[in-house]
């Protein structure tokens, strides 16, 4: 199909042809023609955020919870620079986004025009790819290419910068044609390497699956194949923060999250295993701890679609470049054809060893009658919401780790969190994006009060679109995670790590037309949570919790897995000078 239309009309047409139903954005001078085109149609819905950063995080939430790319439309200059944090967040967490920015007209580029910024220059390092359009005839093809690049291979954000004269000018629209792209990273893994992996599965005595966000990126079929492989082999499985839900938390081989705030049994299994099967995870420093002491005696297989993830941090003995779904399918095929063998006797012993580690019960805490402990608040939230069609977002800090530890994720795409960049202010707008995509679902943002304040203006968005997002704020009146590090690392000198002059969250909610709930008594907690769930509209839940709780277990920076701290340990000198320079 070829048709003449203006650049602005092309943008809307291209979005329709890409199956986009929702765009998150904020208007301004350099995108007025596109906003005019949006006004004149009803297929693509535009959600007005209250800040461009909010729009990008909302699109991330939409994308992560649906598997589809999130779409953002913002103006030039400050609109584009406000999007930078969200772009970087999406890049580090491999979230597919297509961000459209307005730009000053081509003939004014370079003249320091009003609201001009070098958007492609600024965003080059924080996008998977970006384009500046100089000719309306290139616009449609480039938008389609943008969707293709954002969603193909390792997903990520792309940005298309569209000068205003390009939006006004008329050109030829072309329909999507994925084969037109030269970008086609391979998805099939090398069969010899996969066969080598199968041979390792057959003989391993102490195997562990270490899975990550790549399983989620690969799509729901990959999670199904993973479950089949895990349950078929009977091997234990742990996951990164980004991979939670790919294997169900109720599954019998589930060890819980690993890493800095991971579970004791998961980290010890990683340390002592003889075969580590890394699937779509990238050996982040929150996972490895001290590299030289990382899982010293294991063969490491690494499945990843991005060759740069392999051997970046940890040397892979069996590297497999490919898409998780494709590689697991071949792995299962070969493993079955060779007779579904495992070293069951040895694996049985290994499972027994793991059961012993489980008995340490590293997430145990005691709840008294006076102050709500954050772990308790989340345990109750889990209990009262687990049977709902539920999506969880988080902000960044202690509450984020507690959410990962105490909430159970049964399915992929149900947990939206900022892992790689650790962006405070991510969770609230993300929950808005999730709720847009899943209007009937229960969408909860587990927040810390400090993070939540960073994008609290989005309360306006939630109210305007009647999005019943639940903001579950664990209010410790502290920048809790920072305070914890100061306690462990800087002699409890709490430099600027408390939240003073906090608003009355109930009144704040009411000021925006939302519902506010405050709860400080453990005895009231269940009823208050039920009230939150049952309210048909946005809720800000101010849950006053213990102020100086530490998030445990914890592998101090610069320490190996088997030197993790438990809640009962003395923590005062846990991090030594070598570890102190690490973050």
């Amino acid at each position, binding site marked *: 199909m070829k048709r003449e239309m203006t650049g602005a009309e092309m943008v809307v047409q291209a979005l329709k042809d890409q199956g986009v139903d929702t765009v998150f954005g904020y208007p301004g001078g350099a995108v007025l023609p596109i906003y005019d085109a949006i006004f004149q149609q009803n297929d693509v819905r535009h959600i007005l955020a209250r800040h461009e950063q909010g729009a990008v995080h909302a699109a991330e939430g939409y994308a992560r919870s649906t598997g589809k790319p999130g779409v953002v439309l913002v103006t030039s200059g400050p609109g584009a620079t406000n999007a930078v944090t969200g772009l970087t967040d999406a890049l580090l967490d491999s979230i597919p986004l297509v961000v459209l920015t307005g730009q000053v007209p081509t003939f004014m580029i370079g003249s320091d025009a009003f609201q001009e910024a070098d958007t*492609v*220059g600024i965003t*080059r*390092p924080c996008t*998977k*790819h*970006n384009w*500046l359009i100089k000719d309306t005839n290139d616009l449609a093809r480039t938008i389609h290419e943008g969707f293709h*690049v954002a969603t193909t291979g*390792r997903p990520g954000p792309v940005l298309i910068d569209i000068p205003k004269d390009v939006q006004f000018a008329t050109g030829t629209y072309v329909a999507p044609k994925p084969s037109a792209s*030269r*970008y086609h*990273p*391979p998805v099939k893994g090398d069969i010899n390497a996969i066969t080598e992996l199968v041979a390792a599965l057959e003989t391993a005595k102490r195997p562990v699956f270490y899975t990550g966000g790549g399983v989620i990126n690969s799509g729901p079929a990959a999670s199904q194949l993973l479950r089949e492989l895990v349950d078929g082999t009977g091997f234990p499985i742990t996951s990164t923060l980004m991979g939670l839900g790919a294997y169900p938390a109720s599954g019998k081989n589930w060890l819980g999250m690993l890493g800095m705030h991971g579970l004791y049994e998961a980290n010890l299994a990683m340390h002592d295993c003889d075969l580590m099967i890394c699937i779509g995870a990238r050996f982040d420093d929150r996972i490895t701890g001290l590299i030289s002491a990382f899982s010293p005696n294991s063969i490491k297989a690494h499945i990843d679609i*991005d*060759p*740069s993830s*392999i*051997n*970046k941090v940890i*040397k*892979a003995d069996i*590297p497999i*470049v490919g898409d998780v779904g494709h590689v697991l399918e071949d792995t299962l095929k070969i493993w079955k054809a060779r007779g579904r063998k495992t070293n069951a006797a040895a694996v049985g012993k290994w499972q027994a060893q793991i059961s012993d580690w489980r008995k340490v019960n590293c997430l145990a805490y005691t709840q008294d009658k006076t102050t709500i402990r954050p772990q308790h608040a989340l345990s109750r939230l889990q209990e009262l919401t687990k049977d709902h069609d539920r999506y969880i977002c988080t902000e960044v800090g202690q509450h984020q780790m507690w959410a990962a530890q105490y909430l159970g994720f049964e399915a992929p795409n149900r947990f939206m969190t900022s892992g790689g960049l650790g962006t405070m202010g991510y969770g609230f707008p993300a929950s808005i994006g999730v709720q847009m995509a899943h209007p009937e679902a229960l969408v909860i943002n587990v927040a810390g009060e400090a993070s939540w304040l960073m994008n609290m203006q989005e309360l306006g968005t939630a109210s305007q679109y009647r999005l019943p997002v639940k903001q579950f704020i664990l209010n410790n009146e502290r920048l809790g995670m920072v305070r914890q590090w100061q306690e462990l690392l800087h002699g409890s000198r709490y430099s600027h790590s408390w939240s003073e002059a906090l608003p009355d969250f109930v009144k704040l909610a009411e000021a925006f037309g939302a519902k506010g709930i405050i709860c400080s008594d453990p005895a009231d907690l269940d009823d208050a949570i039920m009230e939150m769930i049952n309210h048909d509209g946005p809720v800000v839940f101010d849950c006053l919790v213990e102020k100086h709780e530490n998030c445990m277990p914890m592998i101090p920076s610069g320490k190996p897995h088997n030197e993790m701290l438990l809640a009962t340990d003395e923590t005062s000198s846990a991090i030594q000078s070598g570890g102190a320079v690490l973050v």
Partner: protein
Amino acid sequence: MSALNLKKGASKHSAYNLRPTFSDVDERHTLAILVENEPGVLARVIGLFSGRGYNIESLTVAEVDHTGHLSRITIVTTGTPQVIEQIKAQLGRIVPVYEVHDLTVEGTSVERELAILKVVGTGEKRVEALRLADIFRANVVDSTLESFVFEITGVPDKIDAFGDLMRPLGLTEVARTGVAALLRGN
């Protein structure tokens, strides 16, 4: 025209052969990168090196296939084998990068650099400069009574050596192109 007819991921020599031996000794590698000749592509490559802390010893770029819009970037870099592998993999991620070749491991390659040098002097020094230029097969491309501009091509070491010899003879300016390289044979 492209001397590089390997496809991404298809060759056992490509950047995707992922079983390096890790050592901590720095190596010097010459990489040939075939890219789509689109605006900003050089900035992407350079930004990758500066952003991730890799070294660039030399870099050359020019369009090599006008109809196919292809440019060839030749980069000489140093790093441990693990870093070199990362550099190649990171380059491979850049969307308009089509091929990444490590000429240092893929076979023997021909490397050439061109330099032009201005040597100012009179008398004995001037004669000596001309004599050395002859030995190095450098051409005189401009001359006054008190100066020469020499043009020399060769491997970077040869150009370094020529420059060192010219310095006491009145070297005032040097311009170098950086390395261009191709694999030998077919």
